[in-house]
């Protein structure tokens, strides 16, 4: 029993890890294709049919390049920076419920690595750790531009964590639980949280852009001001690790947003379909629906990147502290009053 449990979780973790790496790799291709489409050009189309093998070619290029470690840098921390960025990007997916339980030969298999009862807080903690990779890498490079990037990453992440946490509090007032599995199950039957928390979702979305360092909030690597920001000195695969971490973060953030606000793996008519196709295919279809939602969010991330120009640094801070935080607090107060009145009189 114990061995079967360990084996089951091990397989699940491996599959999720490989899938997230695959999604991240193909996000790089998708980004360039979407950028091409939005700018009325073709995008990469040489490697394989329609450019399908471009991520492999890019990966090979990253491996083959010379690794340069600056002479005056702190060698250990210089390597630890990108490693930490990759690590924190990977561990976030551990608490996301990917689908309903599969019943295989009388045995229930949960499509979630760990259903901990503080799942939402765990996600929040992993998000707040994500900045260490950037900070340590930027500082260890011993370059003024990198240091500026690291400092910007730290202050931006600290500033946007606050409205993100406050929007989560309003969501928790609605759900009454911190377990992601229960939050998804509550949204069964079109009862999605976006209906109850539209403002909270918009705040969360803006903060996810800031926490994943995506344009319009990619100030830490702002190339018009800082050469390359925190990864100015990085080359070869360490540079690739930072880039990969960004796409992994985007994947996890999309998964979290779909789970918290857009019903997770639920879709209209899930009961009817799962009765029709049985307890193995049904959950897999639900999982496919979750992935469709995730891909829609990743597309949205890219769409915004190639549409909205980068913010100026003071605009970023004003937006965070003077707009998002008061809005998030107002959202908590209004949600609290509405829920109390509703519980009392209906």
């Amino acid at each position, binding site marked *: 029993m114990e061995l079967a449990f360990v084996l089951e979780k091990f397989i699940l973790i491996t599959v999720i890890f490989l899938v997230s790496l695959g999604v991240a790799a193909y996000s790089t291709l998708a980004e360039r294709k979407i950028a091409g489409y939005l700018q009325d050009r073709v995008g990469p189309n040489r490697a394989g049919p329609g450019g399908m093998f471009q991520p492999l070619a890019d990966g090979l290029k990253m491996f083959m390049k010379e690794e340069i470690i600056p002479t005056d840098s*702190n060698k250990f*921390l210089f390597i630890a920076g990108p490693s930490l960025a990759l690590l924190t990007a990977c561990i976030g997916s551990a608490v996301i419920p990917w689908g309903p339980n599969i019943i295989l030969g009388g045995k229930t298999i949960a499509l979630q690595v760990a259903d*901990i*009862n*503080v799942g939402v*807080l*765990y996600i*929040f*903690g992993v*998000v*707040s*750790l994500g*900045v*260490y990779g950037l*900070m*340590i890498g930027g*500082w260890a490079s011993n370059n003024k531009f990198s*240091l500026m990037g*690291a*400092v910007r990453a*730290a*202050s931006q*992440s*600290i500033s946007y*964590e606050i409205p993100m946490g406050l929007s989560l509090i309003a969501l928790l007032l609605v759900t009454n639980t*911190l377990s992601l599995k229960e939050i998804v199950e509550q949204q069964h039957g079109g009862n999605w949280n976006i209906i109850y928390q539209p403002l909270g979702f918009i705040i969360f979305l803006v903060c996810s852009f800031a926490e994943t360092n995506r344009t319009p909030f990619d100030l830490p690597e702002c190339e018009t001001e800082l050469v390359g920001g925190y990864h100015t000195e990085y080359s070869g695969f360490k540079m690739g690790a930072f880039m990969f971490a960004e796409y992994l973060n985007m994947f996890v953030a999309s998964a979290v947003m779909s789970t918290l606000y857009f019903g997770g793996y639920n879709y209209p008519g899930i009961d009817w379909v799962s009765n029709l196709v049985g307890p193995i295919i049904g959950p897999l279809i639900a999982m496919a629906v979750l992935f469709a939602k995730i891909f829609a969010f990743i597309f949205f991330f890219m769409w915004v990147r190639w549409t909205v120009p980068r913010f100026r640094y003071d605009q970023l801070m004003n937006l965070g502290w003077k707009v998002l935080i008061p809005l998030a607090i107002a959202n908590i107060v209004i949600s609290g009053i509405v829920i109390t009145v509703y519980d009392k009189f209906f």
Partner: protein
Amino acid sequence: MSVSLFYLVAFLSIFFSLMVILTKNPIHSVLYLIVTFFTFTIHYILLNAQFLAIVNFIVYMGAIMVLFLFVLMLLNLDKDSEPMKSNFVKIAGLIAGLCLLITLIGSMKSLNISDPVILKDPDIGLVKNLGKVLFSEFLLPFEISSILLLTAMVGAVLIAKREPKTT
């Protein structure tokens, strides 16, 4: 299993907290402190206090240490620019440290060697139970500590505010 895990994590906590004060480079000190806080998180999980573990993770590792690192990165801490401490300061530090050690040993001696507290409810650390206790039995201390935090916040804003020009 659980006991040996505890000893391993406890050893790691002590080792990393010693490394915090033994390393010369302040950035390394802060990084060791982060690892120390991580071992504390593991301790909380071993004690079945999930909420405390995750809050320690978010607040200390995710927020406070980022700010520590942020401040240290802006200070240009080189060996040349650091002022040399005189021997007098070193001796005074040694005496003060030994006094603290004696006080600690004295207070430890008055404790019983093994006095395990047996919890009535092992699930007290879960979010639901902790919230219920905090908002009923310990409501007054909870509110007072929140007022304390608010005061600190107002004070910080007041200090950070630009002073109006007197001339």
